[in-house]
């Protein structure tokens, strides 16, 4: 079987006009994607993780045939998103925004029936499918079936959005920040459904800027920043890629802030200084191998006549990875 999604060197520039005065306007080119390549296989959740404006939504729209790339190629199960858009459209389920995208004056069920019909799902199949999805996403419990969409809470809107994406049971799901702004129960529900779907063989592209979420949902993460993929791998692989991996945090009683330079001399690494809520000085050492500096730290602080209250070694988080690559 062809790979679920293959993107090769995708480039997208937006051309906007910035008004200068009454008639004059200046063309401004925004490079949203600058040569992005990646693959998504069936049965995995791939996270597209990046800060605001990184190009996540742009990438999703291109795969969903809603935006023409300026350069590069994208294939969905072997079909070209530009030349064979209709084949692609039959294979993807899409969620672009959790807070919009349905008709407010229709109930959740009527909305799903409308889009189901538009997607060409036979009526008898559609009715059963909507019941299934309402149950799966616990929309029935929330009374979503008979309530108008405009009365929905954000959590219900997001669930309905995922339900629509799943209506035709597509092999590929494109979910753009599906948990943005949701409360923990709704977010957890959506994450667990997504993971379960991937276990059953669906390919999922999941964008988020929430590190914690990417770590628990995604099998693989693509870090995107300013239109480029800057790192790629499983959460563990990514963490091992940043050089200064661990942080030794030392809580010190009676520390004189002016002694930071002396500590740096004694240990060989300059710590950052903070104060914790109990009033201890908090010295943070970023090191590759904590075991090599621990002794020096303890001895150095003793030499200054201070006392160590607590000591902790922090493993890197995905956030560190994110910040590390985003700042490069």
């Amino acid at each position, binding site marked *: 079987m062809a790979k679920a999604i293959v993107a090769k060197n995708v480039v997208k520039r937006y051309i906007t006009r910035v008004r200068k005065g009454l008639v004059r306007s200046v063309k401004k080119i925004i490079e949203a994607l600058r040569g992005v390549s990646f693959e998504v296989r069936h049965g995995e959740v791939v996270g597209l993780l990046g800060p605001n404006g990184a190009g996540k939504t742009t990438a999703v729209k291109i795969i969903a045939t809603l935006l023409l790339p300026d350069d590069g190629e994208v294939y969905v199960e072997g079909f070209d998103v530009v030349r064979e858009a209709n084949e692609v459209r039959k294979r993807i389920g899409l969620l672009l925004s959790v807070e919009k995208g349905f008709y407010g004056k229709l109930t959740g069920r009527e909305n799903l029936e409308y889009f189901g019909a538009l997607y060409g799902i036979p*009526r008898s199949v559609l009715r059963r499918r909507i019941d299934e999805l309402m149950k799966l996403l616990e929309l029935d419990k929330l009374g979503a079936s008979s309530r108008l969409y405009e009365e929905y809470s954000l959590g219900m809107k997001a669930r309905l959005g995922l339900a629509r994406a799943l209506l035709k049971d597509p092999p590929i799901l494109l979910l753009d920040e599906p948990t943005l702004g949701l409360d923990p129960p709704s977010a957890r529900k959506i994450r667990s459904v997504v993971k379960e779907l991937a276990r059953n063989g669906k390919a999922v592209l999941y964008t988020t800027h929430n590190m914690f979420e990417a770590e628990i949902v995604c099998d693989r993460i693509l870090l995107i920043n300013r239109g480029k993929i800057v790192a790629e791998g499983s959460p563990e692989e990514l963490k091992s890629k940043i050089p200064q991996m661990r942080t030794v945090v030392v809580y010190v009683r009676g520390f004189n802030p002016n002694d930071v330079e002396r500590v740096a001399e004694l240990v060989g690494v300059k710590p950052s200084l903070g104060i914790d809520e109990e009033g201890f000085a908090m010295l943070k050492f970023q090191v590759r191998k904590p075991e090599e500096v621990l002794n020096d730290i303890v001895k150095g602080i003793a030499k200054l006549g201070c006392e160590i209250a607590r000591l902790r070694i922090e493993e890197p988080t995905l956030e560190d990875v994110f910040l590390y690559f985003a700042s490069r």
Partner: protein
Amino acid sequence: MGFIEILYAETRFVWAGLLRRKSALFTALLYPYILTAFVILVGSTMGSPQLFVVRVGIEPVPFFIVSSFMLMSIMGVVDDIFWKPLFDEFMGTLPYVIASPVDRVLYFVALPLPRLIIVLFIGLSSVLPVMIMYYGVAGVYEAVVVMLLAGFGALVFATLAMCITGALYIAGGETWRSLNVIRPLLMVLLGVFYPRWLMPLTAQYLSWALPPSHVVEAVHRMLAETTGNAVQYFVLLGVATALAILYAPIGSTSIRAWERKKLREGISV
């Protein structure tokens, strides 16, 4: 993805919306009467109903009831085609509509049908009773013909509406403002309230380009009973059909060009 499925989807959409807003349904039922009352009230300040009969050759009440009904059917189609993309963009549903494997041209043809069918039934409560009042049993026959022709006039407008919609959306900017200018212009040029044979020449030429205007003329002529010549009606309806067919390729090109433009610029969510 067949036409029937799209039609079914749109029908569900319109029905669900309409049932929820009973007041809108009620207003639609009253609309021909309100418009007729208004026009006749204003008209009476300028001239007597007798003068109207002399100039137009039709009693004012049936004329305006029929005209309002025609206007409602014909403009309903144009409105559906004009506004649905704007509405979808506003609701954030446009990307999901575009990402459906639906033929865009079929979609735009199917779009106005459900509402049109509902509107045609409104003829039963407006055109039918008034025609019976004025023309007796023969009025039933005329009312049925008027309703059928209203449906026909609305349908032949679809392709031109697609041309205009595509062109306007491609031009960009605040499309709804342009629509607010074009809509009343179309209403006047249709000649529903102001028979075409009374228009100035340039307006007549413009009016000729609108397929439903010929259907409107046929209805007016039938009411005026100027001639019993059947050929005349066939010519008028034939011209309307021919124009509609002529606009079809332009309409579909225009819609596809608009979609293409959207895909280049990105559809906002």
